[in-house]
């Protein structure tokens, strides 16, 4: 019994030992120990694995290890920051080690062997690009968006430039036009014919202006055909193939304003092209474009004319002066009483009639600058507009002499005949089908007629008509035979 009595305090002392050690430590430390285990159930294992990794080869320290040994162990560990901390935690670590020392050894047998090889075979899997959270992988998309932005910027810049050029042209020509035409600017939509006084924008690169109300002409349509500066693709293609802005003037005349002839002058290239493309030039001016040096104009310009008299009449001194001074700006000048536009592709089986013609003067001018035009360059086109006005007045007075007129008439008759010949077969077919349609319609009418009397009468009338036709034909045949004889 007495032994028991002595054993009890000993047991109590043993139990109190950890308490004293705990009291040796700061309260903070003690609380931390408990908190560690409370918050993170695996904290103990964490500490254990660290200690065992470091201390695997060392002998596990005895259970009731004095503080000195844990100090040594702690020194080996690299994670302790300061001595105070070391002092605080060393006991806790020692405690863990004491508790799990045997477990450590058994658990991590052969650990070192596997460790290096595991590191060698570590494979880094590539994270898919869209999960990488980096913008660099989307560089193609960024490129596309940049391209679009560049296109939009070019659109705005190009549109503004074209608009400024058009306005500059109009400002420099306004006075001349307003002094010559009663109506300057009309889009055709307003009820009354009042001058709008501004250009009609058809496109971002085409501007129209209609002027009317003058002697010697019906009206004048001016088209400012600029380059497509608003389209980036066009800008890039122009870097390889330069082109220039054009001003096209089309003057439509009344019948009495011009005599019957066809004439054209312009750059050699343009003349060759127009001769192939245009209906009237190909029919009436069959010869190749001739050089105009005889009249004093530069060699770069060529002439297409229906007859020599026309050229002589058109090429007066003032005209020659205009052509010589502004030869670089003139693409083509075309006077025609048979103008019907470019050659129309004829479809098979379609009965054709001659295309409608209109007395027209066409001028095509190149704006200087070859694409790099500035608004100031528009002023240089003013003399050319003067030339247009001059031509309108001149052609009113230009009349062919008798010989010339006869020749012109013969030419036109020839062209018409040719046309009729070519379409003869088609027209015959068309006439035949029309006749058959008529007969069928009549027959149907007769059949549909309910009254038998009327039916009979209609049939008789039809028969009589047929008889008459046959007789006429016979008469014709007889006449032909008589003539032949």
């Amino acid at each position: 019994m007495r032994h028991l009595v002595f054993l009890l305090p000993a047991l109590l002392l043993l139990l109190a030992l950890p308490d004293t050690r705990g009291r040796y430590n700061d309260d903070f430390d003690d609380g931390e120990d408990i908190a560690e285990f409370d918050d993170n159930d695996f904290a103990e294992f964490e500490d254990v694995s660290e200690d065992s990794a470091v201390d695997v080869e060392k002998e596990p320290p005895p259970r009731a290890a004095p503080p000195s040994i844990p100090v040594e162990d702690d020194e080996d560990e690299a994670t302790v920051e300061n001595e105070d901390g070391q002092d605080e935690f060393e006991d806790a670590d020692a405690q863990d080690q004491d508790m799990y020392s045997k477990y450590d050894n058994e658990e991590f047998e052969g650990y070192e062997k596997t460790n290096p090889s595991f590191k060698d075979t570590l494979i880094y899997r590539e994270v898919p690009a869209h999960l990488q959270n980096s913008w660099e992988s989307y560089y193609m998309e960024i490129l596309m968006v940049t391209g679009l932005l560049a296109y939009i910027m070019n659109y705005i810049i190009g549109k503004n430039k074209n608009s400024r050029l058009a306005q500059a042209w109009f400002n420099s020509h306004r006075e001349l036009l307003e002094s010559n035409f009663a109506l300057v600017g009309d889009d055709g939509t307003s009820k009354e014919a009042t001058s709008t006084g501004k250009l009609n924008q058809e496109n971002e690169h085409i501007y129209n202006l209609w002027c009317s109300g003058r002697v010697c002409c019906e009206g004048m349509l001016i088209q400012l055909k600029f380059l497509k500066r608003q389209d980036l693709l066009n800008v890039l293609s122009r870097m390889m193939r330069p082109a220039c802005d054009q001003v096209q003037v089309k003057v439509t005349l009344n019948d009495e304003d011009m005599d019957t002839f066809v004439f054209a002058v312009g750059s050699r290239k343009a003349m060759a092209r127009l001769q192939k493309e245009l209906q009237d030039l190909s029919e009436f001016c069959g010869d190749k474009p001739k050089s105009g040096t005889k009249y004093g104009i530069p060699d770069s310009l060529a002439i297409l004319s229906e007859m020599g008299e026309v050229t002589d009449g058109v090429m007066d001194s003032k005209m020659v002066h205009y052509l010589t001074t502004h030869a670089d700006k003139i693409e083509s000048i075309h006077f025609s009483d048979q103008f019907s536009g470019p050659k129309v592709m004829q479809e098979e089986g379609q009965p054709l009639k001659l295309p409608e013609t209109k007395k027209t003067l066409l001028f095509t001018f190149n704006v200087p600058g070859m694409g790099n035009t500035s608004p100031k360059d528009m002023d240089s086109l003013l003399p050319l507009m003067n030339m247009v006005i001059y031509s309108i007045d001149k052609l009113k007075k230009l009349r062919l002499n008798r010989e010339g007129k006869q020749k012109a008439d013969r030419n036109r008759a020839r062209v018409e005949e040719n046309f009729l010949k070519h379409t003869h077969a088609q027209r015959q077919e068309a006439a035949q089908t029309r006749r058959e349609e008529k007969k069928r319609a009549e027959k149907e009418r007769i059949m549909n007629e309910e009254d038998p009397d009327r039916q009979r009468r209609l049939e008789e009338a039809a028969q009589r008509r047929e008889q008459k036709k046959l007789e006429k034909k016979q008469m014709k045949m007889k006449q032909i035979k008589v003539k032949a004889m």
Partner: protein
Amino acid sequence: MTVNNMADPRRPTKIFRYKPPNTETNPTLEDPTPDYMNLLGMIFSMCGLMLKLKWCAWIAVYCSFISFANSRSSEDTKQMMSSFMLSISAVVMSYLQNPQPMSPPW
């Protein structure tokens, strides 16, 4: 100047109204670019949507932009807007279905 300074060449009584040239009889006058680009844009956007090709959708956006830049002012804006919206939707759908970035063909 050949204008007779004494007489005014203007004749208010001889005014003719402007008649826009009939492009049906003369189809060569019209520029076919906006119509072609519109059609091309629609085809590419349908390809992009159906076949889930991102580059098709991007080209469709470009086509609709080019068509808009070349269009005439008299043309219907609804047509332009519809092709534009279609191409944008093609791009968006392609990326929603497959957010991976576009890989270059080289």
